């Protein structure tokens, strides 16, 4: 474990020169030590160290123990062998742990801006940024979408008041390039709404959505398929709707058809297709592009068993290679498997954000108290 001397020295260098452009040697040493110890990449280690330092800066009783503590908290999931030791050391130094879990998400955001000020090489590219997102739906009880109704009700003053339902409340979120985020929450918590806001389908009432790079929303397969078109024509139609260009589709047409396993049927109108075939075609078109941000809402695995496996593999290959992934799923194990960070949405707010297993565990614990409607269809195990 790193010596106390190292950290205090490092702390001082950072604190004394907030604009220090070069990373001091001691810091490098510390970072490599931590990286080796917890089996994580040097970049990640650097981030953890700096985060810990920053935490300490705001809270004057920084000691080597709190630093270690912080690092161990953030690395428990990375190496399953070490946690035991770390937890032990945590218990011993319990009095030094500052319990400010509620403010954690907020703090993490500040850290990034400060870190990038201190160290220019601190590279964490933002992928998605949500600032103070609020979204309300208006729910009308009576059908009031005709002119006649509106007119009569305005005159007779029986206009029913629209009930406003706040689907998202003050969501602040930063997602970095390459992060795999799982969104969990009970039915009606606002998960899909959040995805639609990120994708740009729903306009937030207030707040800002900033995204960097090409987004590929796999919210539903085969949006805009024309039933009278042949499969081949639908590739172009659906591709255009998804924002591909013509040359790209011409180039990829073969690949799409091959992947969909529909060579024999590709030139007949898709009204003759089975729903499984439609899903195969839709998936093949949607997954042909390598996006920067992949947004998935419960569509892993379509078609028959063999295709399901194939599409799952394709999905995984899309998710690798530095793609930012946002996945909404009711299958908690899927989230645990794919994601490394989870966001728990509850009644339109972010209830918890953090390491995936931790959040999922808390979520499952909480679900015991939830009503039946809230947890219908959710597979916890």
């Amino acid at each position, binding site marked *: 474990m790193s010596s106390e001397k190292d950290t205090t020295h490092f702390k001082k260098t950072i604190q004394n020169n907030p604009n220090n452009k070069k990373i001091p040697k001691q810091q490098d040493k510390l970072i490599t030590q931590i990286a080796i110890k917890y089996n994580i990449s040097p970049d990640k280690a650097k981030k953890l160290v700096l985060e810990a330092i920053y935490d300490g800066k705001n809270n004057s009783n920084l000691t080597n123990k709190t630093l270690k503590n912080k690092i161990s908290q953030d690395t428990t999931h990375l190496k399953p062998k070490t946690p035991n030791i770390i937890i032990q050391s945590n218990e011993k130094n319990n009095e030094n742990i500052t319990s400010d879990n509620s403010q954690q998400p907020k703090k993490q955001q500040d850290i990034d801006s400060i870190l990038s000020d201190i160290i220019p090489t601190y590279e964490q590219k933002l992928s998605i940024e949500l600032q103070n997102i609020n979204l309300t739906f208006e729910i009308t009880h009576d059908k009031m*979408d005709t002119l006649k109704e509106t007119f009569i009700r305005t005159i007779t003053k029986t206009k029913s008041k629209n009930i406003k339902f706040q689907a998202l409340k003050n969501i602040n979120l930063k997602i970095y390039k390459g992060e795999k985020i799982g969104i969990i929450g009970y039915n009606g918590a606002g998960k899909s709404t959040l995805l639609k806001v990120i994708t*740009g389908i*729903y306009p937030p009432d207030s707040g800002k959505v900033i995204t960097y790079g090409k987004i590929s929303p796999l919210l539903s397969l085969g949006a805009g398929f024309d039933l009278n078109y042949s499969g081949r024509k639908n590739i172009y139609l659906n591709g255009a*709707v*998804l*924002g591909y260009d013509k040359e790209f589709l011409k180039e990829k047409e073969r690949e799409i058809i091959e992947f969909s396993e529909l060579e024999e049927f590709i030139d007949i109108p898709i009204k003759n297709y089975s729903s499984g075939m439609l899903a195969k075609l839709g998936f093949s078109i949607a997954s042909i592009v390598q996006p920067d941000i992949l947004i998935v809402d419960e569509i892993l695995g379509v078609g028959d068993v063999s295709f399901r496996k194939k599409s799952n593999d394709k999905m995984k290959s899309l998710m690798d290679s530095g793609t930012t992934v946002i996945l909404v799923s009711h299958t908690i194990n899927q989230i645990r498997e794919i994601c490394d960070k989870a966001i728990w949405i509850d009644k339109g707010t972010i209830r918890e954000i953090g390491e995936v297993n931790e959040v999922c565990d808390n979520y499952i614990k909480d679900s015991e108290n939830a009503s039946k409607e809230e947890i219908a269809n959710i597979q916890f195990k």
Partner: protein
Amino acid sequence: MINKEKLFLLEEIVKKNFAAKYKDSYLGILWSVIKPLLIMILLTIIFSTLFARRVENYPVFFLSGKCIYDFFSAGTTLTMNTIKYNKNILKTTPAPKYIFLLGGVISEFLNFIITLIILIAVMIVARVSFPNTIIFSVLPIASLLIMITGIGLTLSILRMYYTDIEHLWSVALLMGMYASAIFYPMDIIPEPYHGYLILNPVFWIINQFRSLALYGTIPDLLYIINSFLISLILLIFGIIIFKKFEKQVTMKF
């Protein structure tokens, strides 16, 4: 604003609109030719003797008005319903909505071009000489195109808030058709009511088109500018309304 991807989307939407119009029909696009011709023949049989003294070449007179008005009515109706028809796409992808509306206007415009070809054919058959001014008839057509886009944008939003707009607009279109002097000459209307016809901007355009394409007379320049202005105002109004409500409409699905 319009890049390669959007242009491609536009192309696909126009193709799809065309395909949808003639789906499962044996004659396909030929219906664009047959329909106005049949109606022209019918109305010529009924009215040509009645208006023989007032209108020369009744078939050409009727068909020119009919082409313009059909474009207006089909263009506004299709754009009005575009958001509803493409609900499933717009609900799940961030595809730009205005491209879908433009696609509606353009596919109906292409249809209009086909009917213009019939008009020219009928003019040749009826031995109507083509005046030199026919080249300027693109002016009222351009004005009409702008007007249709503007009205379509506004209606497409209204349609999502009030379902009856669809029926209301079809009644308005029917009234508009009778008020556009398509199958009767303007001078059968009693003098005091002439002023009301002037309220109908489509009538202006039909009038300008007829004088440029059939009679070889150039209408008052102010008349042409006015109809352009009206169209522009409608377009700007449409764009403002559309921009304002475009996104809110998604929440209504």
